[in-house]
């Protein structure tokens, strides 16, 4: 874990593919993540719409182009909480916090690793089946949130953000990209 630790703040561009059972095809988002320390995370969406989400000290502020600002506390959005916790722990290199909330398992091959975080608390597991982080060396490359109902969100980070995706993107294709097999 320690080798993942990054000096804060750190920013990375991402491509996110969102699979939802109410949608007949996945939706691809692109933007930038800004990690600003333990309780601070900014997520910017550039396409297909423009939106910024700022999480700071348990407070969330969402501004989508053409809509009024929405503000709420982090507890109202458990998935967002999971994202922040996972990200904070991952980039902050804080295994103690991670162990408090998640059971962890690590699979490693020579060049690739996959870290799976399964929530321990029922309040979290109701909304989140697992967080899967794929990486290479000290670089996380994919960040996936898997929901209990089969919905999922896969984020390709950094260099992978510009990887070429099939149309429509499939889970299998994304897994292959995350495992460095593309």
């Amino acid at each position, binding site marked *: 874990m320690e080798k993942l630790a990054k000096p804060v703040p750190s920013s990375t561009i991402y491509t996110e593919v*969102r699979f939802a059972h109410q949608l*007949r095809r996945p939706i691809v988002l692109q933007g930038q993540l800004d990690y600003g320390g333990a309780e601070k995370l900014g997520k910017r969406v550039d396409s297909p719409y423009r939106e910024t989400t700022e999480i700071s000290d348990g407070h969330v502020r969402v501004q989508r182009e053409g809509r009024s600002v929405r503000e709420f506390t982090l507890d109202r959005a458990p998935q967002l909480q999971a994202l922040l916790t996972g990200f904070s722990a991952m980039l902050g290199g804080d295994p103690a916090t991670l162990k408090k909330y998640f059971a962890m398992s690590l699979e490693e091959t020579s060049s690739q690793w996959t870290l799976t975080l399964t929530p321990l608390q029922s309040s979290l597991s109701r909304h989140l089946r697992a967080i899967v982080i794929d990486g290479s060396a000290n670089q996380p490359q994919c960040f996936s949130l898997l*929901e209990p109902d089969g919905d999922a969100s896969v984020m390709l980070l950094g260099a992978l953000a510009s990887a070429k995706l099939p149309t429509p993107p499939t889970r299998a294709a994304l897994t292959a990209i995350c495992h460095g097999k593309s």
Partner: protein
Amino acid sequence: MTPGRRIALILGWWLLLAALAFVVQQRLVVSGDLRSFMPPARDADQKLLLDEIGDGPASRLLLLGIEGAPVETLAGLSHALADSLRGDAHFSHVLNGETDPSALDPALLPYRYLLSPTLDHEQFDTTYLHAQLQQREYDLTSPAAGMLEPLLPRDPTLEVLTLAQRWTPAKAPSVRAGVWFSSQGEALLLAQTRAGGFDPQEQATAIAALRADFERLPHARDARLVISGPGYIAVQVGATTRAQAEWLGALGSAGFIVLLLLAYRSPGVLALVALPLASGALVGVAAIMLAFGSVHGITLAFGFTLLGVAQEYPIRVFSHRRAGSDAYACVRDVWPLLRLAIVSASIAYVAFFASGVPGLQQLAVFTIVGLLVAGFATRWLLPAAMPPRFGDVADSAWLERARCWLDAMPRPHWLPWSVLGLALILLWIAPTPLWQTNLAALTPVPPALLVREGQLREALGAPDVRYLLLLQASSAQDVLKLSEKIDPQVDKWISAGVVDDVELPSRYLPSIATQRARQAKLPDRAMLTAALDAALADLSFQPDLFKPFVDDVEAARRLAPLTPEEFERSPFGARLQAMLVQRDGRWFGVATLRGVHAASALANISKATDGAVRLLDLKTASENLVAQYRVRILKALGLALLLLAAAVAIAFRNLRRAWHVIAPMSLATLLALAVLRIGGVSLSLFHLVALTLAAGLGLHYALFFERPVADDAEARRTLHATLVCVISAIGVFGLLACSSLPVLRAIGLTVALGVVFHFCLSTQMARPRLDDHEAGPSAT
């Protein structure tokens, strides 16, 4: 009477009183509702006002905070406390920020298109639906999509959220771990009591139940429960006042006992001296119970104060006991005067009956019965219980010196007139307003309590307790229409910072007319399906995902508009019920306000709506009511004084002698009033009651001083009795005058001053003078 029978009589008397006290205590219902001390409401307006003062939703709210533990523990406690309060009959309503899944009754779900204002400015056409659905598609890509998914197929325009927002106070606290939290990290709750906010007894019961509920919770010991709110503050202030009154009363009683021992050198009197007063008080309370069912708390407080005159009866008997003489004989000597004092005071209190105020009528019953019973006990029971050997107080040498000194004192005829003139001048130039209109000034709230109340109120966004917006119309529907009409004005107020939020009844339930207008804009199934298909063409939703939406819109087109009666059966109905009330055939909408910053701007709406909408200032309104009440008391007291004078005159059958008794009493009362006023005191009911008590004591001084006596020894006994009475009254009430609480100070200072003036003026004006035959009544 043998010593054995005497002791048996005393013991039996005490036991009888204890038994009566037990019965009274078992049956006694003390009501604290201030409204029974106000004049009966004369019209719909006053009825509503009295209801809102006592039962208004804002006044019944307790503001709760749980602090001193980690967030998870506090959230768990908030959850558990809310659950247990919902099952507690003392509370009608509990809020702690838990999203209530039953907020919109499933049966009411199709009504959302009639309740939500969306259709006032939108159409369910392709353009609008496409814009909405595009946003929903984006929403599904956000990490918070989980909240939306269950809602989406039925409600793609999110009317349920629009309604939830409308029904949530504008400044609701933030939610952590599922419940409200303040920025200081306390879990916050609002609990509405069933009892009125100004019923201190019932509030105290509810608060005790609340504390017990909290302490039963697991982990309750790890955290602290903070309570505030109007009801809590009233209870706290009442408890502080009672504690100080009891402490000073105990101190005063100890002083009284020492005085009695010094005055009579007989421990036996201690067992006897309290008997007449205790008998009078207990029988008085029992009489109210029989006549009225329940006793008002203020009746008891005022009644016990007024009954204080009865404490003089046994003292008169003890002091007038002659050496070697039969106790009965001595009592017979003083009885005519005591009887005159009792009967004339009782006749005077009959005036209170005419006031028409239940609280005052109770006070009259209590005082009259109490005085009569205390007098009866003094006349017929006390002599039998008195020790056979009893020192004659007339034997003491210092008393004779005091008598000679008093007799030698110059008594110029001009003195009373000068005092009268002086008192009138003092009253005229008094610097402060005559009446204390601010009720709270007498029982000030400790600043720490107020600060905490302010913090909790601010954090909870709880409604203002002083102001209400009142909407008046001839039917419930007209009230709702009126409420819709002023809604835009309310928005202007909020954006101008005049007020933070106004909770209008139409926010919960629009008028039937508005519901029908919205219904008329709902497209039929064919039109909606066509618009939806067109809107979905370039979006990624699953086919047929929105069939429940189409079904609901179709159902909403056929619904009969929702009436207040139906709405009130839903979980949110309780709020509407409190906001929509009928009085005397008129309908009123009661809108609570939050964060009033400029009351005058709000008051202007009355002009704009021809009085149909008014800002109700409960503080001013209740002060006006008390002012009306004060006028009634003043009239009653004035009438009482006339009756008293008439009773004394008739008993004496001699106007001049009656004048010698009434004149010093009236003048001393006036002088006490004048001295209070020049000292900057504004008067309240408590001052009036205290002045009445002092006048009752003054009547005794004057009556006994005026009594022609056979010899100097009897004059010494009169002086002794009066001195014991005066010193004990000054001791007991002088202590109260030192209290830090204005209400106790008001009573103590007034009675102590009054007693001093009554004594001085009685010695000057009531005692027969040697040259009496030369002066007519008009010159005295």
